[in-house]
């Protein structure tokens, strides 16, 4: 495998709240291989959205490196970053608020081209027309306003906007979770299609594990601002190596009422990020927690090819079999 497109090293984002500092993303490191789709999962408040934003510097990271194609984005000046933005884009969750209601579709999609002064008014129109076709809409839709479209169609407009600058990397932030299931599948297939056609690398943020399994090559599980487990999809789904991943996977509904299975049910809520637990942040809800889990940082333990768990008891709980 060649050099990963994105290498994230010790990325941290701290928000200063009146009641103290909140580490939304805490010392996160992982790689996103070129041409892959990496799924980022975790419950609300786990910091996955913040991480996605921090990668693109839509939120300024507090510390750490985001090495994109050999260059640390966090050291770039504002002007350099503006230039680099062409290569990375984002698709949002809410198809309503992600499109300016006062702009026509052609102006929405051409915004990036205009911002970087690419092409003439006419060539931009042609680009918009072909983008609309590419995402499954019609070029006739160009002069309409967002409110004339359904949720799925709006999401396609958002995707076309992100594609206009021909980025290599796309962060899809819960991009299908606001849509009906049938529409979800259409949009997911569109994303897969685009990935193949344009050789895109994607970070797909989601809380729905069944969606992620369908789409992703690699999955990172986040909990309270930290990575709990990361690995290629198949091994991670078949043999999770972290109790949190286990709990998440056992929460996926199975379309078979007769099948019995042992479920790991988590109790309580995610702890306040203002006062994260010492040691392993998951220990307060972990069914396997011991006294030792409260001490010291959790280091990555390799359980397979590119598959790492941040559970201290990985060896005794998961590796032996």
């Amino acid at each position: 495998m060649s050099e990963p497109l994105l290498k994230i090293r010790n990325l941290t984002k701290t928000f200063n709240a009146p009641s103290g500092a909140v580490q939304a993303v805490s010392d996160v490191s992982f790689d996103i291989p070129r041409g892959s789709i990496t799924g980022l999962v975790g419950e609300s408040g786990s910091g996955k959205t913040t991480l996605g934003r921090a990668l693109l510097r839509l939120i300024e990271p507090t510390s750490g490196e985001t090495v994109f194609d050999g260059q640390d984005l966090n050291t770039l000046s504002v002007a350099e970053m503006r230039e680099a933005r062409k290569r990375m884009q984002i698709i949002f969750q809410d198809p309503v608020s992600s499109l300016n209601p006062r702009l026509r579709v052609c102006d929405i999609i051409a915004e990036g081209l205009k911002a970087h002064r690419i092409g003439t008014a006419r060539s931009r129109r042609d680009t918009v027309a072909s983008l609309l076709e590419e995402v499954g809409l019609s070029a006739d839709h160009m002069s309409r306003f967002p409110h004339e479209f359904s949720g799925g169609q709006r999401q396609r407009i958002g995707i076309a906007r992100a594609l206009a600058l021909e980025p290599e990397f796309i962060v899809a932030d819960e991009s299908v979770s606001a849509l009906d299931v049938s529409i979800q599948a259409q949009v997911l297939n569109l994303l897969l299609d685009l990935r193949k056609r344009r050789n895109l690398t994607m970070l797909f943020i989601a809380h729905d594990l069944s969606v992620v399994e369908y789409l992703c090559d690699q999955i990172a599980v986040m909990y309270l601002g930290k990575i709990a487990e990361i690995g290629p999809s198949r091994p991670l789904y078949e043999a999770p190596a972290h109790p949190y991943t286990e709990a998440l996977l056992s929460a996926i509904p199975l379309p078979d009422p007769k099948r019995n299975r042992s479920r790991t049910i988590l109790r309580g809520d995610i702890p306040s990020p203002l006062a994260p637990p010492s040691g392993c942040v998951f220990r307060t809800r972990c069914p396997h927690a011991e006294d030792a889990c409260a001490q010291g940082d959790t280091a990555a333990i390799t359980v397979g090819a590119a598959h790492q768990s941040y559970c201290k008891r990985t060896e005794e709980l998961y590796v032996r079999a």
Partner: protein
Amino acid sequence: MAAPSAASPDANFLALLFSRRAVLLALIVFAAILLLCLFAPLVAPADPMKMSVRARLSPPGGDFLLGADAFGRDVLSRLLYAGRVSLMIGLGVAALASVAGVAFGLLAGFFRRLDGPISRLVDAMMAFPDILLAIALVSILGGSVVNVIIALAIVYTPRISRIVRASTLVIRELPYVEAARALGSSTRTIMFTHVLRNILSPIVVQATFIFAYAMLAEAGLSFLGVGIDPKTPSWGTMINEGRQYLDQAAFLIVFPGLVISVSVLALQLIGDGFRDALDPRLAKDL
């Protein structure tokens, strides 16, 4: 630009606006006043400055449709010419206050460092009663039409600026603004294309009200004798002059008072109409 398929949100707005009878009526009345004053030289029956000792305080009817004032000048003609001044002050104040208010509001909403100073200044200005602040400012600047416009614009700028700041704070966090930043759009594009374009509605509504307030305030200032030069007829100066003849010729203040009331009422109704037509939640119950 107007593609046949594109039902713009603005077309919808006009349909809603005109669907209310009171608003439609107010628009017609106000347009009529505006046009009559605008074309005063064509429609006025007499020269508004022409004095005639014999016609002094003639009652309405006869040669003078709305009577004549203490110098024998035709009240109707004076009303029409005075309307140009009053309306110009209203419009000027609304426009100036909107531009300044939008500028301050956008700056305060966008740049945290400017927010503190601008917002404190706005709060301080809003702590004064409008008319007192206006009197103080006109005393400093001196009484001319332009100075009254400037003074009243200063008085009403904070109203716009507050609305703009609050709306900016909401909109700048919306995903489409984030998308614009991700695309590499400049702060200027974000300010004007994304934020300003989406807060035009409340600004227009507020500007309409300010138009009305400014006309009232001008009348108030002129009545108190701190407004524009009394030689320039405005509705306010006419009332001020007519005040001395209240017992002999009440019509001297009744007519300008009536035009002021009708214009202000019409503007308020139009402002209400704008607000309702622009607010989709209210629109449904109309």
